[in-house]
């Protein structure tokens, strides 16, 4: 608007000398012209619709509920009609978007979109809040508040501020350079190692408690001590559990009686070598040793028929597969590359394979 006014101003200026009385008329003319121009410009972006469109600017969405003019649709070409309709709707939507508050981000004009108003279904259900841990439950019960602690603690030994926990912590128990042997302790015990072991135990207990909290949160069976019981245990699992239980006594299962129908443990019960008794049946021992000598001194080799047959069969299979593989490979090479690759492969093995490796 401001630009227009200055334009008219200069225009009248040139005319002032020539026509004095006609100046008023020309000013009025120009003002009328200016108004008409404005109206035309606005016309270019206004669209007339029966019903106003509904907008959801958060989604850049517009709903046009007007009935489509079927006569128009059939009269004109379908594409042109649709395009004109689309243009009108797009114009209205853009008009609405341009009304939004804007700001300049990195030299680019950006419009702030509101929250989307159409409700669309979620992808996954609402997340459930996690269950409180054992400590959190206890604290809530007792009314213990969380005390905010400082990040850094003064370490007297190193004379600096160190973190409360983690790498290079202040007052590290395992990094003590001098430990006094307490009066009650065994003088030959390694106190430094004792501290390290204690720390490892603490870490292990912490981890166990963390996992138990997770199990409780996910409503899984919490293991008291040892293996966690699964829902339905198979026969093998039960057998294994029973075995573990048998060996979990102070004498490592040596004096545990066997149940009436229980069979001795498979795999020798942990024993890797069996020894025959030293005293007892000497004749059996003599027999065995003579047999052994006989086998060693035999001219003819002993033949295990099953083993031999299996070996033969396996060898035959391998030969057959090798022949098949070679034949197929050769055929393929013949089709694709012809004599060249054959020659190359023939010369030395270190051709394609060595070069082809990335």
């Amino acid at each position, binding site marked *: 608007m401001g630009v227009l006014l200055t334009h008219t101003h200069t225009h009248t200026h040139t005319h002032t000398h020539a026509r004095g009385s006609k100046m008023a008329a020309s000013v009025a003319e120009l003002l009328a012209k200016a108004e008409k121009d404005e109206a035309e410009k606005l016309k270019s972006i206004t669209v007339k619709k029966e019903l106003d469109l509904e907008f959801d600017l958060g989604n850049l969405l517009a709903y046009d509920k007007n009935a489509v003019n079927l006569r128009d649709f059939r009269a004109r070409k379908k594409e042109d009609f649709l395009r004109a309709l689309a243009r009108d709707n797009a114009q209205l939507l853009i008009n609405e978007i341009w009304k939004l508050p804007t700001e300049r981000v990195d030299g680019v004009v950006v419009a702030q979109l509101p929250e989307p108003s159409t409700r669309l279904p979620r992808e996954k*259900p609402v997340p459930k809040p996690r269950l409180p841990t054992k400590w959190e439950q206890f604290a809530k019960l007792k009314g213990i508040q969380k005390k905010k602690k400082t990040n850094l603690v003064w370490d007297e030994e190193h004379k600096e501020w160190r973190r409360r926990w983690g790498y290079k912590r202040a007052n590290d128990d395992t990094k003590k350079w001098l430990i006094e042997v307490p009066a009650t302790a065994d003088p030959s015990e390694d106190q430094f190692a004792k501290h390290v072991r204690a720390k490892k135990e603490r870490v292990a207990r912490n981890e166990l408690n963390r996992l138990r909290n997770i199990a409780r949160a996910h409503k899984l069976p919490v293991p008291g001590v040892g293996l966690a019981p699964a829902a339905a245990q198979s026969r093998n699992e039960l057998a294994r559990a029973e075995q573990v239980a048998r060996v979990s006594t102070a004498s490592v299962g040596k004096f545990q009686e066997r149940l009436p129908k229980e069979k001795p443990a498979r795999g020798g019960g942990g024993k890797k070598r069996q020894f025959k008794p030293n005293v007892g049946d000497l004749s059996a021992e003599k027999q065995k040793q003579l047999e052994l000598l006989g086998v060693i001194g035999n001219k003819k080799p002993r033949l295990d028929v099953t083993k031999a047959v299996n070996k033969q069969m396996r060898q035959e299979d391998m030969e057959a597969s090798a022949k098949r593989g070679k034949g197929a490979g050769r055929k393929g090479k013949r089709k694709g590359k012809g004599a060249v690759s054959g020659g190359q492969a023939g010369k030395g093995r270190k051709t394609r394979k060595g070069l082809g490796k990335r």
Partner: protein
Amino acid sequence: MTQLDGVVKPKTRRSKRFLQTRDPKLTENMKTALIMKGGNTSETVTKALKNIYALKKPNAVLYKNKSIFVWLLMVILVFYLQEFFSKKTDCSLFLFGSHNKKRPNNLVFGRMFDFHVLDMIELGIEKFVSLNDIQCSKCAEGTKPLLVFAGEAFETVNEYKRLQSLLTDFFRGPIVPAVRLAGLEHILHFTALEGKIYMRSYRVLLKKSGCRTPRIELEEIGPSFDFVLRRTHLASDDLYKTAHKLPKALKPKKKKNISHDAFGTKFGRLHMQKQNLEKLQTRKMKGLRKRKGEIIQGKEESPKKTKVE
């Protein structure tokens, strides 16, 4: 990943982040679409699937697996593929394309809630013009499109309403707080007319008009479809409601202590402590300051008296 009797706990930070992106959250990720070919597909269907994949590019996966697709078993098929959907690709929208004599050029748009089918709508392609057939410069992929739905049917008919919601879900881009005004290039226009749904995709040209708001000119790019609505499988009302539940944390917070009177004046309440008027901080007039030896009524006499006595 270590196992805790069915719960997978991640060992590395990377896998932990990966699992976290797939967890149910308050504000969700953008929905990804799984585009798949059904048993028998015609050239039209293949092209159509590829075009829609191009429209939805970064947030879609296109599978060429020719799985058997039967309508009634669709729900069961999705159940069977549930592990595939949830573990392999975290998709909640799907698009199946198939072709047989009874239903030529069939597209099934669907969406899922908690990896069970929520809505499925079958659309038949009557006319299809692909991206390649229309020769002009296209929009960059990943631009957020303007969506316009025209026609009374989208308001009145229930199935069309669901279709509108599904198409919005499918084609709207990521939810952004602000949008670049010059970057509004792409518009998708859906018209429901005479039992058919016309989908057109245009490029927006912002022309100069005299005022700030530009004049729009449209240029057709992109695929254009003439759909006809075939079968639908819509979710039951209560499942639909559960899917729309807003978590409490996201509900708009009511601002307290704001009230309006009949004239529209905004009121609020301020609660003040009791003020000591003698120690009040005010502007100091140098002339009115207390000076030594000045007689102030009542106050100075009493201390003098105690001294003497």
